């Protein structure tokens, strides 16, 4: 028996098919546009427009009162590199970014591993998550007094060594940033822990059991199975932490209030200080542009890495 012959597809049929495809796509595109239009308008009005305005402002010679908006080229950007304490700002911001990525992640992961299947797990989780729901300004105020010369930390440390300690954690250049970062960790490790627990819950049990039978120790299971499978979650958490680290403001604003060089404690605080306290709006705008560029660059790199890792384990 001969196989039935497929009828030839004519050019006319092909054209028709293409036309129908396009029409269908266009129809659904129009419907989609109707639905996203309000959101799009809001984003444009409250996000895109201010961003563009800020970008424009950063290239002007804008001065207080005069409203001069003549083109200043890269003047404000050049000025950034002339700030005498720029290195302090950069070092502190770097400490923030590194500290904000690694510490909440490490502590969050440790807690997540520790709390899995422990009696009273829910209670502990809630407890560690609690600081997250407090306003950063409130957290900062509380910790300001914890770190105060006559605060809890010095009192406890003093009792431990049997000698009065009145160290000013938030008044010394080499302890203020680590101290505020620890408060940040205290506040954010809960959300890190919860996200990592969610990530872990999504890891199938079977490969872990298989590794167990394959002879892996707990550490080897973590190192070779859980960690690689958790990596996509780790990247998401990292991106959130990077953004938080670069834009750290509230805590520093409150806790660094008594520190003379507060403006150099992070790029975000520096930006606010120059823009509003010093009324150098155009300069502040340039700092904002640099800050955004950094955040976008780092987040983008992490997103690329994240999608690579994710593709590998699917």
């Amino acid at each position: 028996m001969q196989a039935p012959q497929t009828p030839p597809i004519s050019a006319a049929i092909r054209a028709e098919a293409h036309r129908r495809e396009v029409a269908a796509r266009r129809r659904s595109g129009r419907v989609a546009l109707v639905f996203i239009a309000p959101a799009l308008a809001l984003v444009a009005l409250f996000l895109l427009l201010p961003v563009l305005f800020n970008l424009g402002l950063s290239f002007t010679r804008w001065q207080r009162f005069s409203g001069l908006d003549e083109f200043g080229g890269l003047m404000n950007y050049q000025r950034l590199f002339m700030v005498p304490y720029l290195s302090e700002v950069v070092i502190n911001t770097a400490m923030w970014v590194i500290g904000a990525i690694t510490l909440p992640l490490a502590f969050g992961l440790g807690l997540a591993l520790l709390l899995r299947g422990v009696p009273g797990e829910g209670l502990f989780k809630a407890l560690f998550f609690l600081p997250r729901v407090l306003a950063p300004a409130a957290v900062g105020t509380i910790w300001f007094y914890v770190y105060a010369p006559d605060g809890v930390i010095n009192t406890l440390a003093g009792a431990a060594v049997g000698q009065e300690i009145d160290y000013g954690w938030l008044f010394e250049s080499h302890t203020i940033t680590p101290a505020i970062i620890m408060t940040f960790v205290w506040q954010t490790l809960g959300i890190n822990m919860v996200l990592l627990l969610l990530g872990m819950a999504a890891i199938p049990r079977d490969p872990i059991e298989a590794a167990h039978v394959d002879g892996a120790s707990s550490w080897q299971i973590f190192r070779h199975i859980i960690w690689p499978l958790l990596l996509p979650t780790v990247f998401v958490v990292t991106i959130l932490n990077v953004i938080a680290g670069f834009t750290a403001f509230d805590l520093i604003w409150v806790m660094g209030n008594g520190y003379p060089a507060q403006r150099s404690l992070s790029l975000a605080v520096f930006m606010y200080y120059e823009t509003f306290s010093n009324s150098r709006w155009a300069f502040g705008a340039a700092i904002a542009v640099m800050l955004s560029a950094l955040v976008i660059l780092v987040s983008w790199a992490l997103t690329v890495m994240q999608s690579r890792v994710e593709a590998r384990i699917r």
Partner: protein
Amino acid sequence: MKIKTLMASAAITASAWTAAAAQDATFYYDKNGWDEGFAALIEGASEASGLDIAGQQLTPTDRYQAYVMSSIAGGAAPAIFTWWNGKQLDSLVETGEIADLTELWDEAIANGWFSEAERELFSVDGTPYAIPLNVARWPVLYNKDAFAAAGIDAPPATWDELLADADALKEAGYIPFNAPAVGGWMGFIWFSELMVRTDPDAFVGLTDGTVPYNGPEVQRAMEIWTDFYERGYFTDAREQDETRFMVNEEAAMYLIGEWTAGILANRGMEPGEKIGAFLMPPVDAETENTVIVEAAPIVFSADAMEEMPALMDAARYLMSPEAGNALGQANGIYSGNLMTDAPNAIVSDVNAIIAEDAPRSVVRWWEAVPPELQGDLVSQMNAFMLDPTAENAQRVMDDMQSLNESYWAFQ
């Protein structure tokens, strides 16, 4: 779109939103805790002018300044608003949006309300552009009981007496001076005072770029400051409650604006009974006797003044003894009007001292220094207070000078 136009539309939108169109004029201010006094001033100004004037408080100061600046940049200055004198007033007047008040000041001086000295505080290049909301001198407030406990009969009249009194107070268990560094601005207080007590001309020179921050004049003031720290004359600069050591009577003296008398009174230290005031004596007998004056101006929009001539009557009222008394009664604030009653014993003490010694008035460092340098320099001074060593003093002076130099180089 031009930024200027955008600013203007933003400012107009904002003002339309904050002040209803029914008012003739709005009086903007950022002074926190003076609500009762402002209410009285606004009521009196409305009555005097026949205009419907509304009050509008905007805080914090950052936001207030940003609002006023963008309004002016957009060509729509608020009709009446409070501002700062010195360099802040200079740059405000440069915009050409602020009304000239020469006639009003001539009248006020003729009435005996103010003297030429006050007029000078509110003038730019000899022309007065503002009227006083508040004039505050910076004496040393002292705890009378502490002085009695230390066996001190009268406030010090010479530098040696000051040192002797400080030592006696220490002996009696007091820290001689309360010296907080709260809120990022208090660092300049002792710096300016020691400059003024050693070389008032150099102090003025610092604010216009003619005297360097690491020259011999500043070196001398910083040496005294460091020495005072070494002698244990100051309270812990890390304390965040600025009057704590005065109120709990650990410290005996407090170098600060006389408006602090009101704050101390609220915390149970009655001016006149518990608290007295004196002007810090000069370090060398031949140094000119000087007093640091902080003045808070009220300014008027030139356009508004032109549109509503009655606004001048409001301004006249705000300069009057009645307005000064209203503010004094409401909030214990002294307007500087010579014909008002002193709102408390501290103000009357300082009035008496000034009447007797006739010291030279200098504008407070904060207002006198270019606004762009304020924050950068004062944070250096704060840094010194937290680490008051000779080594740090040198670093602070050099850093201040490099900031100062680069600012003036750009002008």
